[in-house]
């Protein structure tokens, strides 16, 4: 078990180390202006030094992210359900949803500010705008993926549309929903950063802006490190959630009955 862990993640670790070392060497030997590219060690020192400030901003961004993600999930679920249940709504909304993905947030910033002010509102809204699309699409795909025969079976039992949804289609759509959520969670922190350009007092994006204007490049990189960690953390959290919510899904895809791998014909 332990050996497999090393053989699984070892190469990536080694490569990461090599890249960091190369970077360090490059900044030292290549006589690179630290305003352009600070050495990894310098970034780490900065992380330690600015920890209090960084922590403050991180908490704020994390709050935006988590709230946004949660609301995006709710919106996506509701929207997916409505689009799934009402054909006209679906055909009306789907193309526009896709089109909406091609609109850069910058353009919406002034509007969001006017409608929602400077509080967390517009930032959360930006996270929602970023995140609800992949979740909605995943949910719809999941709901659509219900085998037609299963629906036939339920209908033959005189199940109402709601029962079909509740007993079969929703649970069946969960794996797909989670894979959408995983993607959304990864991008949510970046979305929050974009949201902060709408105008904010706090947050990693604001800190990055400060640091850029103060030409404190090491701080910019420190924020990026935190941002990556946030993404990873959220990603891991969603995976954990998924394992808890769908025990049947993972026990299936992993090995079957313990020890006995006699795979009887099943299809």
């Amino acid at each position, binding site marked *: 078990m332990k050996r497999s862990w090393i053989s699984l993640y070892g190469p990536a670790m080694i490569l990461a180390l090599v890249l960091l070392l190369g970077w360090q060497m490059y900044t030292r030997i290549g006589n690179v202006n630290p305003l352009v590219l600070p050495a990894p060690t310098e970034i780490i020192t900065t992380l330690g030094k600015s920890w209090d400030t960084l922590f403050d901003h991180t908490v704020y961004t994390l709050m935006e992210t988590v709230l946004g993600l949660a609301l995006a999930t709710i919106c996506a679920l509701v929207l997916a359900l409505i689009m799934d249940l009402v054909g006209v709504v679906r055909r009306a909304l789907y193309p526009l949803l896709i089109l909406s993905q091609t609109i850069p947030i910058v353009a919406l910033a002034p509007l969001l500010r006017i409608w929602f002010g400077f509080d967390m509102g517009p930032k959360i809204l930006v996270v929602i705008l970023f995140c609800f699309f992949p979740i909605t699409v995943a949910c719809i795909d999941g709901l659509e993926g219900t085998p037609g025969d299963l629906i036939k079976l339920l209908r033959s*039992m005189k199940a109402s549309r709601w029962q079909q949804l509740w007993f079969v289609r929703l649970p069946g759509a969960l794996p797909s929903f989670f894979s959408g959520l995983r993607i959304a969670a990864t991008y949510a922190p970046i979305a929050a950063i974009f949201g902060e350009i709408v105008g904010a007092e706090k947050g990693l994006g604001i800190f990055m802006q400060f640091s850029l204007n103060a030409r404190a490049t090491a701080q910019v990189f420190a924020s990026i490190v935190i941002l990556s960690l946030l993404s990873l953390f959220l990603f891991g959290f969603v995976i954990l959630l998924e394992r808890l919510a769908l025990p049947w899904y993972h026990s299936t895809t992993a090995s079957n009955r313990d020890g006995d791998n006699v795979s009887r014909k099943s299809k």
Partner: protein
Amino acid sequence: MEQRSIAVSIKKVSKRYLHQGREVPVLQEIDLTVPQAAFVSLVGPSGCGKSSLLHLIAGLDEPDEGEIILHGDSKSSRAGKCGYMLQQPLLLPWRTVEENVILGLDVRKTPRKEALEKARDLLKRFGLADFAENYPATLSGGMKQRVALLRTVLFQNELLLLDEPFGALDALTRQTMHLWLQDLWESISASVLLVTHDIREAIFLSDTIYVMSHRPARILQRYDVDLPRPRKIEDLSQEHVIQLEQKIFAQLMEEEKV
């Protein structure tokens, strides 16, 4: 036969489907009867319309012409009145075996406790008690089909519509399933309409076999299987049974060719 009451009676049923703008006739004046507590099979070339017929009986669709009389009633909705089982076991992977078995009762809003009791009883009676709390993913193909059958039976044990329930199983497992199904059927005395491609299966299990033509499907012939119950595998080697098998086979090959 005339004395026994009738579970389903199908009278001059026709059905057309719209396919790429054209109307394709699928069923043509089908006449067919499943007496109470009888086991009736339906064989026919692939794509002739066997599943479509079950579809109609299960109340998922209405015939274009003719009528389907369920337990003497041709007017009210048929949905929810038959136990309909399709080729794939269609077990829900997130429900344990017993939870899968009570799906129909859940739909009917039977209280959970009562439903589970019934399911456990049934699982015990048919040798699946040990698996009651397993997830379906841990079962073999044959086991899954058994669970699916029990789910069908628990939902509705008066009339079962089985659409090639063993088509996806290997030859050996299938033979075991035949014995098991015969057992089950006798103990609950349901009326069964079975669709199959396997002539031996039809002969082994049925009182009556209807042979259908190629599409648009008509009833070509009706055979009564003259074998005492309970039947054994060996019974299939009886001279007249083998002759029946070959007759049906020849008839079907003829239909498949056209």
